């Protein structure tokens, strides 16, 4: 129980649209150990992305608890949740979600900028820039550092999003259909990259996908159905 990086207990999440009430998560239980590469599968609308957003503290849940490092995050203030998200959690989205006005390098450095005041940024600017370039080099994007997202291919944009997610060296990487918008070859390269991050850097990854073949690349697979987790392997 103590050896988890993130744990969800009896999570309930409901969406209301007018008179309609849709309970997406119904007492969901989940625990993830450090260094795990976990895939969560499920059909469209099963609540995979909702779960990922809750684990990443991007959304509120109705009841239940989420523990990060065994600390109940529902007890944290909004500011501390923001800091936790900034320092400990990295996101990779299906549609990349890069800022179009920024270059690849600037998009990569964005979480580092968010985490520093104007004064502290003056002191760490050079270091963070070097760190961002190192990550981009590892991901094969060094030559593209000054390009804007509109000048990149889908695979390059997703690698930029991964670089951004890794810049603050988060303990948990959340990937929401990371290959969903890519062709098979490029998607395979992204999955290779995630596997490498997990195996070589012991990066904890939770990935959601509707595709069982993609989910098979993870070490552990869980299936989300009717608002609850079912073990696949």
């Amino acid at each position, binding site marked *: 129980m103590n050896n988890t990086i993130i744990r969800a207990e009896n999570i309930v999440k409901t969406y209301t649209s007018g008179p309609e009430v849709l309970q997406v998560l119904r007492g969901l239980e989940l625990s993830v150990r450090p260094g795990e590469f976990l895939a969560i599968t499920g059909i469209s609308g099963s609540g995979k992305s909702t779960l990922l*957003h809750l684990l*990443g503290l*991007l*959304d509120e849940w109705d009841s239940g608890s989420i523990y990060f490092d065994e600390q109940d995050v529902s007890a944290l203030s*909004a*500011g501390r949740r*923001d*800091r*936790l*998200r*900034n*320092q400990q959690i990295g*996101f990779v*989205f299906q549609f990349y*979600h*890069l*800022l179009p*006005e*920024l270059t690849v390098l*600037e998009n990569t450095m*964005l*979480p580092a*900028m*968010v*985490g*520093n*005041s*104007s*004064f502290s*940024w003056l002191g760490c600017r050079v270091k963070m820039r070097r760190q961002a370039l190192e990550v981009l080099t590892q991901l094969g994007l060094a030559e593209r550092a000054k390009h804007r997202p509109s000048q990149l291919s889908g695979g390059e944009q997703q690698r930029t999003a991964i670089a*951004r997610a890794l810049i603050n060296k988060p303990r948990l990487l959340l990937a929401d259909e990371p290959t969903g918008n890519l062709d098979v070859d490029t998607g395979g390269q992204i999955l290779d990259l995630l596997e490498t991050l997990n195996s070589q850097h012991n990066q904890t990854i939770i990935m959601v996908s509707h595709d069982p073949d993609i989910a098979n690349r993870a070490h552990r697979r869980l299936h989300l159905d009717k608002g609850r987790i079912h073990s696949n392997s």
Partner: protein
Amino acid sequence: MLHHFELFLACRYLKKKRLAFFSIAAVALSVAMLIVVSSVTGGFVKQYRLACHGSYGDIIISADSLMGFPYYDELVAQARELDGVQEATAVIKLPGLLRIDQPGRFKLFVKGVQILGIEPESYSKTTEFKAGLWKQSKVDGPPSLALPDKLPDNPYLTEGIKPKGACVVGVEVVCNRSSDGSYQRKKDLYGSPVIISVMALKRTGLIDVDTTVRYPFLLIDDFEGSVPLITEPTVYIPFELAQKMSRMVEYSDDPEHFEPARASQIQILAPDADLQELKKRLRGIWEKIARDNNYVGEAMVFETWDEQEGISILINQLEHERSLMTVLFGIMGVVSIFLIFCIFFVIVTEKIPDIGIIKSVGGSSAGVGRIFFVYAGAVGVVGSLLGLAMGWPFVVHINAIHDWVGRTFGWKIYDPRVLLFPDIPNEVDWSATMIIMIAAVVGSLIGSMIPAVRAALMKPIQALRYE
């Protein structure tokens, strides 16, 4: 505490979002317009103040009666001894008629005027009288109202019309003003005789109906004051002659009844003195003189130059008009604030996905709101600076621009015949400009407030899913 990403993104949006240029243009135009309006109207107020001040000393002591007041010479002498007083001069003021009759040259001309009896030397030290004289301003030394040693060769200077002294007329009395604000002088008039008539007052204050005082004078010069419309048409004659014509000379009809000479006014130059304090001291001196001479006479009025009734009303009116104009044009600035609100609402809507991304990497709600505040502040600062860059040269070159518009399109907006000054004021009012620029930045922030709060309150997941 600002985070780096707030400044960074605000600056980046400012550079990349063309929509923001419309906000900047709106702020710039409003700022430029207000700088021009405020500087020009403020310039008029300043010019009026300077012009009015130049026509008087700093303090004016007058009797609240056409009869004038005695012991003026003692008061002038003691005033001159006071710290801070540079000069003091006595003046006689009385209503009169100016008549010019030169058949064949000028048709009969009679005009009601204010006669000012002055001591030219001390009066020109106390006021800007010399600077306004057409001829004598160009001559070294104090101005004079003495007759020349040899009278000019003028057919109208006959035996019957021997001038008692020289006079200077206010330029507006005898000259017409052309459309460019300059006066068209009738040069033959200078060196000609004029007749000045006044109604003599008895010591009882009644008009002496049996006597009309009528003196011929030699017209030697004219005086172009800065504010002719607020002063009555004036003719300047020597103090002693004015005193004689108005019967304010010393008077004794029997050895036991003696009345000293009188004056209407004393003007005092004390540019560096505390005028309110000086007024009190002068009043004290006057009260002592009156007490020592057992004089119980007219109420005396001690005023600073801008406390005089006509001037204070005019300057107050001008300042109110200036405020009104600035407020009216400021209302147009409010339109800019609304424009900024609309533009920022569109920008924030367009940037909703960015807001989601920023929050997903740990950006706080306050931080997201501050991006748009800083952005709006930057729009305000850049707009204000651009407005300054447009408004400043416009004000400085406003007369050249006005002339060019007049020549090219035939539009002549400024008429110096109406507004008294030959040129439109062209000095930037920097204190008003600073206030306008700060108000523009604050206005920009107000305009962006609702969109920024909307951005800040947006839930990250809503923003990420926004299409």
